[in-house]
């Protein structure tokens, strides 16, 4: 009986089943590679050696950010035996509940933790760790791991320096292959800008282990181990003393001060107030909620992110454009009767001063009407077909000063502000349904113009340089650290160099004109420093006007250009001008003669004026 060939079918079935098995084994062993890596990871354990993060220096070699030793407390839940929770809590300076909660959490996550170690506490100071170290034999499964912790000898402000914290999953995903959970990275400020230099390279010891995570021996006697490479040190362009002085002057005020060395574009100081105190910076995780919930938003770096109307300091830009376009000559006189009148009963107001005045006087006294004429002449110029073309020409000029776009500094999170063009108004009013009077507030730096304090400081440096600027930057080239070549390139504006002295003289008069002449910034005057400045008072829809001031000094070969912006500070001369002037004096002479003014500025508290969210 042959069973009608059924044994053949069964044999074929056997063959098919065997092929199925072999095919799967082949895929597993030959085609897929991932299992080999898994096997290595399975049987070896890498103990990470964390590198020391690079030190951050100021321009004179002072340490802005250094390191001190701290420890992480690691738990291997599987190794934990019964222990005295209270004793451990006392040693580690935490509550017993904290430890109980952590252990309960690890118990819940036990399948994903397996026999790995997890970090229970971070940044434990050395004193605490020493206490733990003496008694740790009583707590099997707990051990310490050395980690560097940031230390801040100078109060240079948290927004400038930035903070370091443990990377989260989103950060790891954004930098594939660079970070693993448990690593630290600079999140803001200089720490973030130069993360790649500062972080160094991790090293590791490799041990063989069995499945119970018991270490059996060093793998290949340590031949494959790798030492950690410390992070590179960074020299910044910041002047620590100036920065700290700026912080002190700006305390209890909302706003920002940015100082630049015009001849290099190096940022000397970058103050954003209120800021994060460096005391909180080292262990930001602990204070994060508190900082994030502060209504004055200390995390918000106003120096590069806040978009403010520049106010009257913008008249300088309009003046320069007028000169370059030939529609303004220094000897032109325009009337001002408490403002500029246009249309049927409309007026753009101005303060009381003599009339008519010429260009220098218009800068000195900050006349609004004068610049209404200037702007009107620029954009209603016959050489342009219509007002839209005129405005776009103006727009192009303004952009050449760096406004309305990111300047491209090496500081992270810089914002672009905004400068309107014909498109802006076509969208708002419709094509051909607006004219130069519609946009007249642009003349005095109001309306649709927004700029950051960094933009204003850069404008000031551009004027100080008579027509060009270097892209502002925060890091100096030093051994092993290069900066991009673009930071060495002059960025010219569309206004010729020879137009600048005319404007600069007006700025000099604003500060240095004799009393009674009407100079708006006489408060900034310092004997023999030759400060040139321009005040601004920008409308703030949320309360009192913002106080704005830009200045540079000395007039020839300027060493410092500075912009101060104080929210709700009133007239430019009230807060911004004294603060900027004091900082210039401090930087150029190393000392401050006007003790009374300094005290008044330090003590002034404007926080109650500031509307909170």
């Amino acid at each position, binding site marked *: 009986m042959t069973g009608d060939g059924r044994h053949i079918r069964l044999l074929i079935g056997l063959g098919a089943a*065997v092929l199925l098995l072999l095919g799967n*084994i082949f895929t597993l*062993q030959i085609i897929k590679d991932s299992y080999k890596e898994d096997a290595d990871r399975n*049987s070896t354990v890498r103990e990470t050696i964390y590198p020391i993060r690079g030190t951050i220096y100021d321009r004179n070699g002072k340490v802005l950010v250094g390191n001190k030793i701290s420890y992480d407390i690691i738990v291997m839940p599987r190794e934990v035996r019964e222990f005295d929770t209270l004793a451990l809590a006392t040693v580690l300076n935490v509550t017993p509940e904290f430890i109980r909660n952590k252990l309960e959490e690890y118990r819940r996550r036990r399948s994903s933790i397996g026999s790995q170690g997890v970090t229970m506490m971070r940044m434990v100071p050395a004193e605490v760790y020493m206490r733990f170290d003496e008694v740790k034999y009583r707590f099997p499964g707990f051990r310490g791991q050395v980690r560097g912790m940031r230390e801040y000898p100078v109060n240079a402000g948290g927004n400038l320096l930035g903070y370091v914290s443990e990377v989260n999953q989103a950060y790891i995903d954004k930098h594939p292959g660079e970070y693993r959970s448990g690593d630290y990275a600079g999140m803001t400020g200089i720490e973030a800008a130069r993360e790649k230099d500062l972080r160094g390279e991790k090293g590791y010891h490799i041990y063989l282990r069995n499945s119970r995570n018991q270490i059996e021996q060093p793998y290949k006697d340590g031949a494959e181990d790798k030492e950690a490479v410390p992070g590179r040190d960074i020299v910044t362009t910041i002047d620590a003393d100036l920065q700290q002085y700026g912080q002190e002057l700006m305390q209890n005020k909302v706003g920002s001060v940015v100082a630049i060395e015009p001849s290099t574009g190096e940022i000397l100081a970058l103050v954003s107030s209120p800021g994060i105190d460096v005391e909180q910076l080292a262990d930001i995780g602990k204070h994060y909620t508190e900082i994030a919930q502060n209504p004055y938003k200390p995390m918000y770096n106003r120096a590069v992110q806040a978009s403010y109307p520049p106010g009257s300091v913008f008249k300088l830009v309009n003046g320069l454009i007028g000169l370059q376009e030939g529609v303004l000559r220094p000897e032109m006189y325009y009337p001002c009767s408490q403002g500029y009148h246009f249309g049927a009963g409309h007026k753009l107001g101005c303060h009381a001063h003599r009339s008519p005045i010429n260009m220098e006087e218009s800068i000195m006294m900050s006349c609004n009407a004068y610049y209404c004429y200037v702007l009107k002449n620029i954009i209603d110029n016959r050489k342009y077909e219509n007002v839209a073309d005129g405005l776009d020409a103006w727009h192009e000029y303004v952009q050449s000063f760096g406004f309305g776009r990111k300047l491209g500094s090496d500081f992270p999170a810089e914002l672009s502000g905004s400068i309107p063009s014909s498109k802006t108004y076509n969208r708002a009013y419709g094509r051909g349904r607006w004219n130069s009077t519609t946009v007249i507030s642009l003349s005095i730096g109001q309306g649709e113009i927004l700029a950051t304090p960094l933009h204003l400081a850069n404008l000031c440096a551009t004027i100080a340089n008579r027509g060009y600027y270097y892209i502002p930057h925060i890091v100096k080239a030093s051994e092993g650290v290069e900066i991009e070549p673009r930071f060495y390139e002059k960025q010219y504006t569309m206004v010729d160099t020879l137009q600048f002295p005319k404007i600069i003289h007006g700025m000099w008069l604003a500060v240095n004109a004799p009393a009674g002449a009407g100079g708006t910034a006489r408060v900034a005057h310092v004997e023999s420093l030759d400060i040139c400045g321009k005040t601004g008072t920008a409308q703030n829809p949320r309360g009192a006007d913002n106080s704005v001031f830009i200045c540079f000094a000395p007039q020839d070969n300027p060493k410092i250009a500075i912009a101060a912006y104080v929210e709700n500070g009133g007239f430019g001369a009230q807060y911004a001008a004294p603060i900027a002037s004091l900082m210039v004096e401090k930087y150029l002479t190393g000392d401050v003669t006007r003790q009374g003014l300094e005290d008044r500025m330090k003590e002034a508290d404007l926080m109650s004026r500031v509307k909170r969210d």
Partner: protein
Amino acid sequence: MDWAIIGVYLVLVLIGWISIYAATHTSEPGSLISWGSRAGKQFVWILTSIGLAGIILYIIPPRLFEIGSLPFYLFVLGLLVLVIFVSSDVKGSHSWFNLGPIRFQPAEISKISTSLLLSYVMSQQGFKITRLKDFLLAVAIIGVPMLVIIAESETGSALVYVGFIFVLYREGLSGWWLGVIGLIILLFVGTLTWGAFWSILVMTALLVLCNIVVGNNPERLLRLILGSAFVVLMAHVPALMDWLHSLVQARLDWMSTRVWVPAVDEDYHYFWSFVLKIQPIHILLFFSALAFPVLLYRALVGKKRFLLITLGVYLAGVIMVFSTDYIFQNVLQPHQRGRIEVLLGLREDPAGLGYNVTQSKIAIGSGGLFGKGFLHGTQTTFGFVPEQATDFIFCTIGEEWGFAGCLVVILLYTFLIARLIIDAERCRGKFTRIYGYCVASCIFMQLFINVGMTIGLMPVIGIPLPLLSYGGSSLWAFTILIFIFLALYRDEKKYF
């Protein structure tokens, strides 16, 4: 005497012995032959097995196997029941007799007794498997020990008995049974392990394939191409949907961070939230529902009986998949669900879901083409793979000897099984032939389940690899199974 089978038997047993040593040499110091280590114990089991083989071949008269099959069957059945009451609990199962230093599992011997009785009954004059009474008798012989073993919580061992269906098939059972039982197992296990989508997709593929193979249609090739294209396309739907869903989710997340524009955003949000709700199974069912009436119409009009039947089976299958899913998720109590999940290896181990299989796959996968060399495996020797000397012995081979080693071992088994079938086919006596098939089926089932388990093809079912795994019961049982056949086969030759 078939010396080839004896040769393969000895080679496999030796490979097993060496692999047990490799798997345990770090945790259990001791040589290959000292009683202190598992390898040493296995050496003793091997020697006694050879002794047993000698007794079976040269001392016991072959007729005895036939005559004694019924008493033996009943005796073993008694043991199977007895063990439930007297055994100690080993990992939740009550299947081990503890006799001093020796433990043994009657379930292993039951394979022998069942094979013998099944062969005896089916070889009787006038037995016809197609007759209902005879069919039920055969099913009872197989089913009773199977049920008792399930009661011992050794469901894995019970699964081996399903293999006897091949024997029944060889003796005239309709091929449909094979298909239907296969399909039911596939769908049940498939639905719970891989989910409804894959189960239905596999069934769709089978439907398409069967109708192409069976029908003698001139457009066969075209249909084959179109059919496989459809299946391949569908197989990519889950990954595609995942990708699409992540895009949509990102978009919705982004929307939630910006200012809400009611008129536009609500429609938009509604639409994309709806897209998020679409699962791969919906797409597959959509196409199935489109094609089904068309095929049904063609089957009815064209009087295509096979197509009609397969369509019916398909429909029944889909219903079964969903009811399995539904009952499992909604009707069963959590603890009942847990038990089934453990049975299927979905939730076996304390270290987390799928720990065993993952470790086992890592071990085998890291072997590569030629392996890491004898005693150089890191996964198996450092104890990552559980049960490495018993159920997961194949991992050691995979890791230390690579694909080459796996190929050799599996080909040895294939040769053994094929040789048993061919020898059985040559026999005149029905008893020997049927018994030969029983042996082949048992070895095949355990090989397939065990190896399939180590490479993640099958759920984790704790049964040993025949002849290779550590353990006396299993080695003895397979030795006896094989050598009874050899004894019968040698006896058979006397007719010539």
